[in-house]
Protein backbone atom coordinates (compact mmCIF):
# COMPACT_ATOMS: atom_id res chain seq x y z
CA UNK A 1 0.00 0.00 0.00
CA UNK A 2 2.60 2.49 -1.06
CA UNK A 3 0.91 5.87 -1.10
CA UNK A 4 1.07 7.65 -4.45
CA UNK A 5 0.96 11.36 -4.81
CA UNK A 6 -1.66 12.44 -7.33
CA UNK A 7 -0.21 14.37 -10.25
CA UNK A 8 -1.51 17.88 -10.49
CA UNK A 9 0.25 20.37 -12.70
CA UNK A 10 -1.33 23.47 -11.22
CA UNK A 11 -0.13 23.10 -7.65
CA UNK A 12 3.52 23.91 -7.15
CA UNK A 13 5.02 22.32 -4.08
CA UNK A 14 8.58 22.87 -5.24
CA UNK A 15 10.89 25.02 -3.18
CA UNK A 16 14.43 26.23 -3.70
CA UNK A 17 16.93 26.69 -0.90
CA UNK A 18 20.43 27.96 -1.65
CA UNK A 19 20.16 26.84 -5.25
CA UNK A 20 18.92 23.33 -4.39
CA UNK A 21 15.56 22.60 -5.97
CA UNK A 22 13.40 20.35 -3.80
CA UNK A 23 10.46 18.70 -5.53
CA UNK A 24 8.41 19.36 -2.40
CA UNK A 25 9.03 20.77 1.08
CA UNK A 26 8.73 17.50 2.99
CA UNK A 27 11.91 15.90 4.30
CA UNK A 28 12.54 12.94 6.59
CA UNK A 29 14.47 13.83 9.73
CA UNK A 30 17.90 12.59 10.72
CA UNK A 31 17.96 9.42 12.80
CA UNK A 32 14.40 8.48 11.91
CA UNK A 33 14.89 7.16 8.38
CA UNK A 34 18.23 5.37 8.60
CA UNK A 35 20.15 5.88 5.39
CA UNK A 36 17.04 5.74 3.19
CA UNK A 37 17.19 2.24 1.80
CA UNK A 38 15.72 0.68 4.94
CA UNK A 39 12.32 2.12 4.02
CA UNK A 40 12.53 1.54 0.26
CA UNK A 41 10.09 -1.41 0.33
CA UNK A 42 7.44 0.79 1.91
CA UNK A 43 8.02 4.36 0.78
CA UNK A 44 8.60 5.70 -2.71
CA UNK A 45 11.62 7.88 -2.07
CA UNK A 46 11.00 9.70 -5.36
CA UNK A 47 8.03 11.37 -3.71
CA UNK A 48 9.89 12.87 -0.75
CA UNK A 49 11.58 16.27 -0.95
CA UNK A 50 14.72 15.11 0.82
CA UNK A 51 16.15 12.24 2.79
CA UNK A 52 18.39 13.27 5.68
CA UNK A 53 20.89 10.67 6.84
CA UNK A 54 21.49 9.54 10.40
CA UNK A 55 24.19 11.76 11.91
CA UNK A 56 27.57 10.78 10.45
CA UNK A 57 30.83 11.02 12.36
CA UNK A 58 34.43 10.72 11.22
CA UNK A 59 34.66 7.11 12.43
CA UNK A 60 31.77 4.72 13.09
CA UNK A 61 30.26 4.98 16.56
CA UNK A 62 28.65 2.30 18.68
CA UNK A 63 26.47 4.57 20.78
CA UNK A 64 25.16 4.03 24.29
CA UNK A 65 24.37 0.69 25.92
CA UNK A 66 20.74 -0.38 26.15
CA UNK A 67 18.22 0.85 27.22
CA UNK A 68 18.16 3.57 24.59
CA UNK A 69 14.51 4.39 24.01
CA UNK A 70 11.36 4.69 26.06
CA UNK A 71 7.83 5.71 25.17
CA UNK A 72 6.28 8.59 27.11
CA UNK A 73 2.85 10.22 26.78
CA UNK A 74 2.57 11.43 23.16
CA UNK A 75 6.27 11.05 22.65
CA UNK A 76 9.41 9.05 23.16
CA UNK A 77 12.79 9.48 24.76
CA UNK A 78 15.95 8.39 23.00
CA UNK A 79 19.58 8.27 23.97
CA UNK A 80 21.16 6.50 21.03
CA UNK A 81 24.51 8.22 21.32
CA UNK A 82 25.02 8.77 17.59
CA UNK A 83 25.38 5.06 16.74
CA UNK A 84 26.31 5.35 13.04
CA UNK A 85 28.33 3.73 10.27
CA UNK A 86 30.77 6.61 9.83
CA UNK A 87 31.14 9.00 6.95
CA UNK A 88 33.35 6.75 4.77
CA UNK A 89 30.91 3.86 4.82
CA UNK A 90 28.07 6.26 4.09
CA UNK A 91 29.84 7.49 0.97
CA UNK A 92 30.90 4.05 -0.25
CA UNK A 93 27.82 2.03 0.72
CA UNK A 94 24.78 4.26 0.98
CA UNK A 95 25.12 6.98 -1.64
CA UNK A 96 24.93 4.59 -4.57
CA UNK A 97 21.33 3.71 -3.79
CA UNK A 98 20.29 7.24 -2.88
CA UNK A 99 21.68 8.56 -6.17
CA UNK A 100 19.18 6.45 -8.09
CA UNK A 101 16.27 8.34 -6.49
CA UNK A 102 14.79 11.71 -7.35
CA UNK A 103 14.79 12.76 -3.71
CA UNK A 104 17.46 15.22 -2.62
CA UNK A 105 20.04 13.85 -0.22
CA UNK A 106 21.18 15.69 2.88
CA UNK A 107 24.00 14.35 5.06
CA UNK A 108 23.69 15.15 8.74
CA UNK A 109 27.12 15.46 10.39
CA UNK A 110 28.66 15.81 13.84
CA UNK A 111 31.96 15.62 15.66
CA UNK A 112 33.46 15.86 19.13
CA UNK A 113 35.51 18.86 18.06
CA UNK A 114 35.12 21.51 15.38
CA UNK A 115 38.05 19.88 13.55
CA UNK A 116 36.09 16.65 13.37
CA UNK A 117 33.05 18.41 11.92
CA UNK A 118 35.33 19.95 9.31
CA UNK A 119 36.93 16.60 8.48
CA UNK A 120 33.53 14.97 7.93
CA UNK A 121 32.43 17.89 5.76
CA UNK A 122 35.62 17.64 3.70
CA UNK A 123 35.13 13.94 3.11
CA UNK A 124 31.60 14.54 1.93
CA UNK A 125 32.85 16.90 -0.76
CA UNK A 126 33.66 13.78 -2.76
CA UNK A 127 30.21 12.21 -2.32
CA UNK A 128 28.54 12.30 -5.69
CA UNK A 129 24.80 12.95 -5.54
CA UNK A 130 24.71 14.78 -2.24
CA UNK A 131 22.89 18.13 -2.05
CA UNK A 132 23.29 19.64 1.38
CA UNK A 133 24.81 19.25 4.83
CA UNK A 134 22.82 19.42 8.01
CA UNK A 135 25.02 20.28 10.97
CA UNK A 136 24.04 18.52 14.16
CA UNK A 137 24.92 21.02 16.86
CA UNK A 138 21.95 19.91 18.85
CA UNK A 139 21.84 16.22 19.83
CA UNK A 140 21.56 16.16 23.62
CA UNK A 141 22.91 12.63 24.08
CA UNK A 142 26.67 12.89 23.68
CA UNK A 143 29.22 14.23 26.11
CA UNK A 144 31.29 16.08 23.55
CA UNK A 145 30.22 18.07 20.51
CA UNK A 146 26.67 18.62 19.25
CA UNK A 147 24.64 20.46 21.87
CA UNK A 148 27.87 21.61 23.51
CA UNK A 149 28.40 23.81 20.44
CA UNK A 150 24.78 24.50 19.71
CA UNK A 151 24.05 25.91 23.13
CA UNK A 152 26.57 28.71 22.80
CA UNK A 153 26.34 31.40 20.12
CA UNK A 154 30.12 31.86 19.85
CA UNK A 155 30.81 28.13 19.34
CA UNK A 156 27.87 27.84 16.94
CA UNK A 157 29.34 30.65 14.90
CA UNK A 158 32.80 29.07 14.88
CA UNK A 159 31.52 25.62 13.96
CA UNK A 160 29.23 26.76 11.15
CA UNK A 161 31.81 29.14 9.72
CA UNK A 162 34.52 26.47 9.71
CA UNK A 163 32.26 24.07 7.83
CA UNK A 164 31.12 26.75 5.38
CA UNK A 165 34.74 27.41 4.53
CA UNK A 166 35.45 23.85 3.43
CA UNK A 167 32.15 22.48 2.16
CA UNK A 168 30.98 22.65 -1.42
CA UNK A 169 27.39 22.18 -0.28
CA UNK A 170 24.86 24.53 1.26
CA UNK A 171 24.88 24.22 5.03
CA UNK A 172 21.90 23.82 7.36
CA UNK A 173 22.69 23.97 11.09
CA UNK A 174 20.15 22.10 13.21
CA UNK A 175 19.28 23.89 16.40
CA UNK A 176 18.61 22.66 19.90
CA UNK A 177 15.59 23.76 21.89
CA UNK A 178 17.59 23.30 25.10
CA UNK A 179 18.84 26.90 25.12
CA UNK A 180 17.82 30.12 26.80
CA UNK A 181 17.40 32.06 23.58
CA UNK A 182 17.19 30.16 20.33
CA UNK A 183 17.05 33.39 18.33
CA UNK A 184 20.55 34.27 19.47
CA UNK A 185 21.88 30.93 18.19
CA UNK A 186 19.98 31.31 14.92
CA UNK A 187 21.48 34.77 14.42
CA UNK A 188 24.96 33.31 15.01
CA UNK A 189 24.26 30.77 12.23
CA UNK A 190 23.15 33.53 9.90
CA UNK A 191 26.23 35.56 10.62
CA UNK A 192 28.47 32.53 10.05
CA UNK A 193 27.05 32.11 6.55
CA UNK A 194 24.58 29.28 7.03
CA UNK A 195 22.24 28.80 4.06
CA UNK A 196 19.20 27.76 6.07
CA UNK A 197 18.35 26.52 9.55
CA UNK A 198 16.51 23.44 10.76
CA UNK A 199 14.81 23.43 14.15
CA UNK A 200 14.33 21.69 16.50
CA UNK A 201 16.23 18.67 17.75
CA UNK A 202 14.93 16.79 20.79
CA UNK A 203 14.27 18.25 24.26
CA UNK A 204 16.22 16.86 27.21
CA UNK A 205 14.03 14.62 29.34
CA UNK A 206 14.10 11.50 31.46
CA UNK A 207 12.03 8.73 32.96
CA UNK A 208 12.51 6.77 36.15
CA UNK A 209 11.68 3.11 36.60
CA UNK A 210 10.04 3.45 40.01
CA UNK A 211 10.06 -0.29 40.52
CA UNK A 212 13.81 -0.57 40.01
CA UNK A 213 14.35 2.84 41.62
CA UNK A 214 16.65 4.03 38.84
CA UNK A 215 16.55 5.92 35.54
CA UNK A 216 15.09 3.99 32.62
CA UNK A 217 17.73 5.03 30.07
CA UNK A 218 21.33 3.93 30.45
CA UNK A 219 22.38 7.47 29.62
CA UNK A 220 20.03 8.75 32.39
CA UNK A 221 18.63 11.53 30.21
CA UNK A 222 17.46 11.35 26.61
CA UNK A 223 15.86 13.48 23.93
CA UNK A 224 12.10 13.85 23.82
CA UNK A 225 10.45 13.75 20.39
CA UNK A 226 7.00 13.20 18.93
CA UNK A 227 3.66 15.03 19.17
CA UNK A 228 4.46 16.17 22.72
CA UNK A 229 7.09 18.62 21.44
CA UNK A 230 5.19 20.13 18.53
CA UNK A 231 4.02 23.27 20.38
CA UNK A 232 7.60 23.94 21.50
CA UNK A 233 9.01 23.49 17.99
CA UNK A 234 6.30 25.67 16.50
CA UNK A 235 6.95 28.52 18.94
CA UNK A 236 10.65 28.37 18.13
CA UNK A 237 10.06 28.52 14.38
CA UNK A 238 7.70 31.44 14.99
CA UNK A 239 10.26 33.38 17.05
CA UNK A 240 13.23 32.72 14.81
CA UNK A 241 11.21 33.68 11.70
CA UNK A 242 10.68 37.14 13.15
CA UNK A 243 14.39 37.87 13.55
CA UNK A 244 16.28 35.78 11.03
CA UNK A 245 16.19 36.00 7.24
CA UNK A 246 17.29 32.47 6.40
CA UNK A 247 14.81 29.83 5.22
CA UNK A 248 13.66 27.71 8.16
CA UNK A 249 13.01 23.98 8.13
CA UNK A 250 10.56 23.07 10.87
CA UNK A 251 10.81 19.78 12.73
CA UNK A 252 9.25 18.46 15.91
CA UNK A 253 6.17 16.32 16.38
CA UNK A 254 4.83 16.61 12.85
CA UNK A 255 2.42 13.70 12.39
CA UNK A 256 0.15 14.82 9.56
CA UNK A 257 -0.75 17.52 7.03
CA UNK A 258 -2.36 19.90 9.48
CA UNK A 259 0.70 19.79 11.73
CA UNK A 260 2.80 20.62 8.66
CA UNK A 261 0.49 23.50 7.72
CA UNK A 262 0.98 25.03 11.17
CA UNK A 263 4.73 25.02 10.64
CA UNK A 264 4.48 26.67 7.22
CA UNK A 265 2.17 29.30 8.61
CA UNK A 266 4.58 29.95 11.50
CA UNK A 267 7.35 30.61 8.98
CA UNK A 268 8.86 27.34 7.83
CA UNK A 269 9.89 26.97 4.19
CA UNK A 270 10.05 23.21 4.55
CA UNK A 271 9.39 20.62 7.22
CA UNK A 272 10.91 17.37 8.46
CA UNK A 273 9.03 14.29 9.58
CA UNK A 274 10.78 12.42 12.41
CA UNK A 275 9.22 10.11 14.97
CA UNK A 276 6.11 9.83 12.78
CA UNK A 277 8.11 7.64 10.37
CA UNK A 278 8.19 4.94 13.04
CA UNK A 279 4.45 5.16 13.55
CA UNK A 280 3.57 5.21 9.86
CA UNK A 281 6.42 5.07 7.34
CA UNK A 282 4.08 6.66 4.79
CA UNK A 283 3.62 9.85 6.82
CA UNK A 284 5.89 12.01 4.67
CA UNK A 285 4.25 10.94 1.41
CA UNK A 286 0.80 11.38 2.93
CA UNK A 287 1.75 14.93 3.93
CA UNK A 288 2.92 15.71 0.39
CA UNK A 289 -0.43 14.48 -0.86
CA UNK A 290 -2.29 16.38 1.86
CA UNK A 291 -0.50 19.64 1.09
CA UNK A 292 -1.46 19.32 -2.58
CA UNK A 293 -5.06 18.77 -1.63
CA UNK A 294 -5.05 21.69 0.78
CA UNK A 295 -3.57 24.04 -1.80
CA UNK A 296 -6.04 22.88 -4.41
CA UNK A 297 -9.04 23.34 -2.14
CA UNK A 298 -7.87 26.75 -1.01
CA UNK A 299 -6.81 27.98 -4.44
CA UNK A 300 -3.19 28.32 -3.44
CA UNK A 301 -0.94 27.88 -6.46
CA UNK A 302 2.39 27.70 -4.65
CA UNK A 303 3.27 26.37 -1.24
CA UNK A 304 5.48 29.42 -0.80
CA UNK A 305 2.35 31.52 -0.26
CA UNK A 306 1.86 29.76 3.06
CA UNK A 307 5.21 30.63 4.58
CA UNK A 308 4.68 32.82 7.63
CA UNK A 309 1.02 33.35 6.76
CA UNK A 310 0.01 33.36 10.43
CA UNK A 311 2.66 35.93 11.34
CA UNK A 312 1.50 39.51 11.96
CA UNK A 313 1.82 41.58 8.79
CA UNK A 314 4.69 44.08 8.85
CA UNK A 315 3.62 47.51 9.95
Amino acid at each position, binding site marked *: *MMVRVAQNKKIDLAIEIAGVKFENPVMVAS*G*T*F*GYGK*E*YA*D*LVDLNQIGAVIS*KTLTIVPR*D*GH*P*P*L*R*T*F*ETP*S*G*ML*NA*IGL*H*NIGVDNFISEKMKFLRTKKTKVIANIAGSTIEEYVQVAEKLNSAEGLHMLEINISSPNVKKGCMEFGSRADLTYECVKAIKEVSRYPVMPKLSPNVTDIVEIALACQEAGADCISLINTLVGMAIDWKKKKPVLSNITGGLS*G*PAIKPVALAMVWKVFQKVKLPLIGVGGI*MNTTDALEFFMAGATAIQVG*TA*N*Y*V*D*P*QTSVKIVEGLKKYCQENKISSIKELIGMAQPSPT
Partner: protein
Amino acid sequence: MVYQTDSPVLENLRLGEDCYKLILKAPKIVDHSWAGNFVHIQVNPFFYPLLRRAFSINEVDRKKGSLEVVFKVIGTGTGHLSRKKKGDTVNLLGPLGKTFSYPDNEDISIMVAGGLGIVPVYFLTRDLLRKKHKGKTYFLYGAKEKDQLYCLSDVKKLPKSKVEILYSTDDGSYGFKGYLDALLKQVLEKEDKNKVKIYACGPEGLLAKLSGLAKEENLFCQLSLEVGMPCGMGTCMGCVVKYKKDYSSPVTFKRVCCEGPVFNAQEVILD
Protein backbone atom coordinates in the same frame (compact mmCIF):
# COMPACT_ATOMS: atom_id res chain seq x y z
CA MET B 1 10.36 -7.58 1.26
CA VAL B 2 8.43 -5.79 4.00
CA TYR B 3 4.76 -4.96 3.57
CA GLN B 4 2.47 -2.48 5.27
CA THR B 5 -1.15 -3.53 5.32
CA ASP B 6 -4.44 -2.67 6.97
CA SER B 7 -5.33 -6.07 8.32
CA PRO B 8 -8.87 -7.07 9.29
CA VAL B 9 -9.29 -8.91 12.56
CA LEU B 10 -10.77 -12.32 11.77
CA GLU B 11 -11.00 -13.48 15.36
CA ASN B 12 -9.92 -12.44 18.83
CA LEU B 13 -9.88 -15.41 21.20
CA ARG B 14 -9.38 -15.22 24.95
CA LEU B 15 -6.91 -17.91 25.98
CA GLY B 16 -6.92 -17.25 29.70
CA GLU B 17 -6.53 -14.48 32.26
CA ASP B 18 -5.35 -11.46 30.20
CA CYS B 19 -4.10 -13.61 27.33
CA TYR B 20 -5.44 -13.38 23.79
CA LYS B 21 -4.96 -14.86 20.34
CA LEU B 22 -5.62 -12.43 17.53
CA ILE B 23 -6.10 -13.81 14.02
CA LEU B 24 -5.42 -11.26 11.29
CA LYS B 25 -5.80 -11.38 7.54
CA ALA B 26 -2.57 -10.31 5.88
CA PRO B 27 -1.94 -12.48 2.79
CA LYS B 28 1.16 -10.69 1.53
CA ILE B 29 2.86 -10.82 4.89
CA VAL B 30 1.85 -14.44 5.42
CA ASP B 31 3.35 -15.46 2.09
CA HIS B 32 6.79 -14.39 3.27
CA SER B 33 6.68 -15.26 6.96
CA TRP B 34 8.84 -17.92 8.61
CA ALA B 35 9.47 -18.90 12.20
CA GLY B 36 11.10 -16.08 14.14
CA ASN B 37 9.59 -13.30 12.05
CA PHE B 38 7.46 -10.74 13.80
CA VAL B 39 4.88 -8.12 12.87
CA HIS B 40 4.84 -4.54 14.11
CA ILE B 41 1.30 -3.52 14.96
CA GLN B 42 -0.11 -0.02 15.11
CA VAL B 43 -2.81 -0.72 17.64
CA ASN B 44 -4.89 2.31 16.68
CA PRO B 45 -4.55 5.38 14.46
CA PHE B 46 -4.89 7.92 17.30
CA PHE B 47 -1.24 7.98 18.38
CA TYR B 48 -2.15 6.51 21.76
CA PRO B 49 -0.04 4.61 22.32
CA LEU B 50 2.25 6.38 19.89
CA LEU B 51 4.60 3.61 18.79
CA ARG B 52 3.92 0.24 17.25
CA ARG B 53 4.08 -2.94 19.29
CA ALA B 54 6.04 -6.02 18.16
CA PHE B 55 4.60 -9.53 18.20
CA SER B 56 6.14 -12.75 16.97
CA ILE B 57 4.04 -14.75 14.58
CA ASN B 58 2.50 -17.78 16.28
CA GLU B 59 1.13 -19.55 13.25
CA VAL B 60 0.07 -18.86 9.66
CA ASP B 61 -2.62 -20.24 7.44
CA ARG B 62 -1.10 -19.81 4.02
CA LYS B 63 -4.29 -20.78 2.19
CA LYS B 64 -6.45 -18.27 4.06
CA GLY B 65 -3.68 -15.68 4.16
CA SER B 66 -4.06 -15.25 7.91
CA LEU B 67 -1.63 -15.10 10.80
CA GLU B 68 -1.94 -15.44 14.56
CA VAL B 69 -0.37 -13.40 17.32
CA VAL B 70 -0.70 -14.42 20.95
CA PHE B 71 -0.19 -11.81 23.63
CA LYS B 72 -0.61 -10.96 27.25
CA VAL B 73 -2.09 -7.65 28.38
CA ILE B 74 0.70 -5.77 30.11
CA GLY B 75 0.02 -2.13 29.24
CA THR B 76 -1.75 0.33 26.98
CA GLY B 77 -0.95 -1.24 23.62
CA THR B 78 -1.82 -4.80 24.49
CA GLY B 79 -4.88 -3.49 26.38
CA HIS B 80 -6.18 -1.87 23.18
CA LEU B 81 -5.41 -4.99 21.17
CA SER B 82 -7.31 -7.20 23.61
CA ARG B 83 -10.48 -5.24 22.84
CA LYS B 84 -10.29 -5.67 19.07
CA LYS B 85 -13.31 -7.34 17.52
CA LYS B 86 -13.92 -9.24 14.33
CA GLY B 87 -14.09 -6.67 11.51
CA ASP B 88 -11.80 -4.09 13.17
CA THR B 89 -8.54 -3.43 11.37
CA VAL B 90 -5.02 -2.86 12.57
CA ASN B 91 -2.08 -1.63 10.55
CA LEU B 92 0.75 -4.14 10.23
CA LEU B 93 4.35 -3.98 9.12
CA GLY B 94 5.88 -7.30 8.33
CA PRO B 95 7.31 -9.77 8.10
CA LEU B 96 10.20 -8.30 10.09
CA GLY B 97 13.40 -9.69 11.53
CA LYS B 98 15.58 -12.71 10.92
CA THR B 99 14.19 -16.20 11.23
CA PHE B 100 15.53 -19.23 13.08
CA SER B 101 17.90 -21.35 11.03
CA TYR B 102 15.80 -24.42 10.50
CA PRO B 103 17.29 -27.79 11.53
CA ASP B 104 18.36 -30.53 9.12
CA ASN B 105 16.89 -34.03 9.28
CA GLU B 106 19.97 -35.33 11.12
CA ASP B 107 19.61 -32.74 13.88
CA ILE B 108 17.84 -33.21 17.18
CA SER B 109 15.72 -30.10 17.73
CA ILE B 110 14.78 -28.98 21.20
CA MET B 111 12.18 -26.21 21.41
CA VAL B 112 12.31 -24.33 24.69
CA ALA B 113 9.14 -22.30 25.24
CA GLY B 114 9.01 -20.18 28.39
CA GLY B 115 5.58 -18.64 28.95
CA LEU B 116 4.51 -16.61 25.93
CA GLY B 117 7.95 -17.23 24.49
CA ILE B 118 6.20 -20.23 23.07
CA VAL B 119 5.08 -18.15 20.09
CA PRO B 120 8.06 -18.26 17.71
CA VAL B 121 9.08 -21.82 18.61
CA TYR B 122 5.52 -23.05 18.14
CA PHE B 123 5.59 -21.57 14.62
CA LEU B 124 8.91 -23.31 14.01
CA THR B 125 7.53 -26.64 15.19
CA ARG B 126 4.39 -26.33 13.07
CA ASP B 127 6.48 -25.36 10.07
CA LEU B 128 8.76 -28.38 10.51
CA LEU B 129 5.70 -30.63 10.63
CA ARG B 130 4.38 -29.07 7.43
CA LYS B 131 7.72 -29.62 5.77
CA LYS B 132 7.64 -33.28 6.87
CA HIS B 133 10.87 -32.73 8.77
CA LYS B 134 12.30 -36.09 9.84
CA GLY B 135 14.65 -35.12 12.68
CA LYS B 136 13.78 -35.86 16.28
CA THR B 137 11.96 -32.94 17.89
CA TYR B 138 11.39 -32.12 21.55
CA PHE B 139 8.96 -29.45 22.69
CA LEU B 140 9.60 -28.16 26.21
CA TYR B 141 6.85 -25.87 27.43
CA GLY B 142 7.01 -24.21 30.82
CA ALA B 143 5.32 -21.52 32.89
CA LYS B 144 4.92 -20.45 36.49
CA GLU B 145 1.77 -22.51 36.95
CA LYS B 146 -0.65 -24.57 34.90
CA ASP B 147 -3.05 -21.65 34.30
CA GLN B 148 -0.27 -19.79 32.57
CA LEU B 149 0.34 -22.51 30.01
CA TYR B 150 -1.97 -20.41 27.83
CA CYS B 151 -1.29 -22.33 24.65
CA LEU B 152 -1.72 -25.77 26.20
CA SER B 153 -4.56 -26.78 23.87
CA ASP B 154 -2.44 -25.95 20.77
CA VAL B 155 0.55 -27.82 22.16
CA LYS B 156 -1.58 -30.84 22.97
CA LYS B 157 -2.58 -31.00 19.32
CA LEU B 158 1.01 -31.48 18.16
CA PRO B 159 1.34 -35.10 16.95
CA LYS B 160 2.98 -37.13 19.74
CA SER B 161 4.45 -39.52 17.19
CA LYS B 162 6.58 -36.70 15.75
CA VAL B 163 7.15 -34.38 18.71
CA GLU B 164 8.11 -35.37 22.23
CA ILE B 165 6.34 -32.89 24.49
CA LEU B 166 7.49 -32.15 28.04
CA TYR B 167 5.99 -29.63 30.45
CA SER B 168 7.32 -27.80 33.44
CA THR B 169 5.76 -25.48 36.00
CA ASP B 170 7.56 -23.65 38.77
CA ASP B 171 4.99 -24.86 41.31
CA GLY B 172 4.65 -28.36 39.92
CA SER B 173 0.97 -27.89 39.06
CA TYR B 174 1.64 -29.46 35.64
CA GLY B 175 4.50 -31.63 34.43
CA PHE B 176 8.03 -31.34 35.80
CA LYS B 177 8.30 -29.20 38.96
CA GLY B 178 11.00 -26.61 38.46
CA TYR B 179 12.50 -24.30 35.87
CA LEU B 180 12.65 -25.01 32.17
CA ASP B 181 16.43 -24.95 32.02
CA ALA B 182 16.54 -27.81 34.52
CA LEU B 183 14.19 -29.78 32.29
CA LEU B 184 16.34 -28.94 29.30
CA LYS B 185 19.44 -30.25 31.10
CA GLN B 186 17.67 -33.58 31.66
CA VAL B 187 16.95 -33.87 27.95
CA LEU B 188 20.50 -32.89 27.02
CA GLU B 189 21.89 -35.72 29.14
CA LYS B 190 20.07 -38.21 26.94
CA GLU B 191 21.13 -36.78 23.59
CA ASP B 192 24.31 -36.28 21.56
CA LYS B 193 25.12 -32.63 22.18
CA ASN B 194 26.81 -32.30 18.81
CA LYS B 195 23.54 -33.05 17.06
CA VAL B 196 21.35 -30.89 19.26
CA LYS B 197 19.83 -27.61 18.06
CA ILE B 198 18.06 -25.62 20.72
CA TYR B 199 15.49 -22.97 19.81
CA ALA B 200 14.24 -20.82 22.65
CA CYS B 201 12.18 -17.82 23.59
CA GLY B 202 10.89 -16.68 26.95
CA PRO B 203 11.54 -14.42 29.92
CA GLU B 204 14.87 -12.61 30.15
CA GLY B 205 16.08 -14.76 33.06
CA LEU B 206 15.59 -17.97 31.11
CA LEU B 207 17.31 -16.64 28.02
CA ALA B 208 20.26 -15.38 30.06
CA LYS B 209 20.65 -18.86 31.61
CA LEU B 210 20.47 -20.52 28.19
CA SER B 211 23.02 -18.11 26.79
CA GLY B 212 25.33 -19.07 29.66
CA LEU B 213 24.71 -22.77 29.13
CA ALA B 214 25.33 -22.53 25.39
CA LYS B 215 28.65 -20.80 26.02
CA GLU B 216 29.77 -23.29 28.68
CA GLU B 217 28.84 -26.39 26.73
CA ASN B 218 29.40 -25.01 23.24
CA LEU B 219 25.82 -25.78 22.22
CA PHE B 220 24.00 -24.70 19.10
CA CYS B 221 21.27 -22.57 20.59
CA GLN B 222 19.20 -19.79 19.04
CA LEU B 223 17.26 -17.29 21.12
CA SER B 224 14.48 -14.97 20.05
CA LEU B 225 14.84 -11.73 22.02
CA GLU B 226 12.27 -9.11 22.98
CA VAL B 227 13.09 -5.45 23.57
CA GLY B 228 11.17 -2.24 22.96
CA MET B 229 11.22 -1.42 19.26
CA PRO B 230 10.33 2.09 18.13
CA CYS B 231 10.73 1.53 14.37
CA GLY B 232 11.18 -2.21 13.83
CA MET B 233 12.94 -1.36 10.56
CA GLY B 234 16.54 -0.87 11.62
CA THR B 235 16.50 2.92 11.44
CA CYS B 236 16.25 4.28 14.99
CA MET B 237 19.08 2.21 16.55
CA GLY B 238 16.94 2.04 19.65
CA CYS B 239 16.57 -1.72 20.12
CA VAL B 240 20.14 -2.92 20.59
CA VAL B 241 21.54 -5.88 22.50
CA LYS B 242 25.17 -6.36 23.59
CA TYR B 243 26.91 -8.64 21.15
CA LYS B 244 30.26 -10.41 21.00
CA LYS B 245 30.96 -12.65 18.05
CA ASP B 246 33.55 -14.73 19.92
CA TYR B 247 35.90 -14.42 22.86
CA SER B 248 38.44 -12.41 20.89
CA SER B 249 36.03 -9.89 19.38
CA PRO B 250 35.05 -6.59 20.97
CA VAL B 251 31.62 -6.00 22.46
CA THR B 252 29.37 -4.18 20.01
CA PHE B 253 25.66 -3.50 19.76
CA LYS B 254 23.30 -5.26 17.36
CA ARG B 255 19.79 -4.15 16.47
CA VAL B 256 17.31 -6.74 17.67
CA CYS B 257 14.69 -5.75 15.08
CA CYS B 258 16.73 -6.43 11.96
CA GLU B 259 19.94 -8.20 13.00
CA GLY B 260 17.70 -10.38 15.24
CA PRO B 261 15.37 -10.96 16.96
CA VAL B 262 16.88 -14.44 16.60
CA PHE B 263 20.52 -14.58 17.75
CA ASN B 264 22.98 -17.34 18.44
CA ALA B 265 22.96 -17.71 22.21
CA GLN B 266 26.74 -17.80 22.30
CA GLU B 267 27.03 -14.39 20.66
CA VAL B 268 24.76 -12.23 22.84
CA ILE B 269 25.47 -10.86 26.28
CA LEU B 270 22.33 -10.87 28.40
CA ASP B 271 22.88 -9.47 31.86
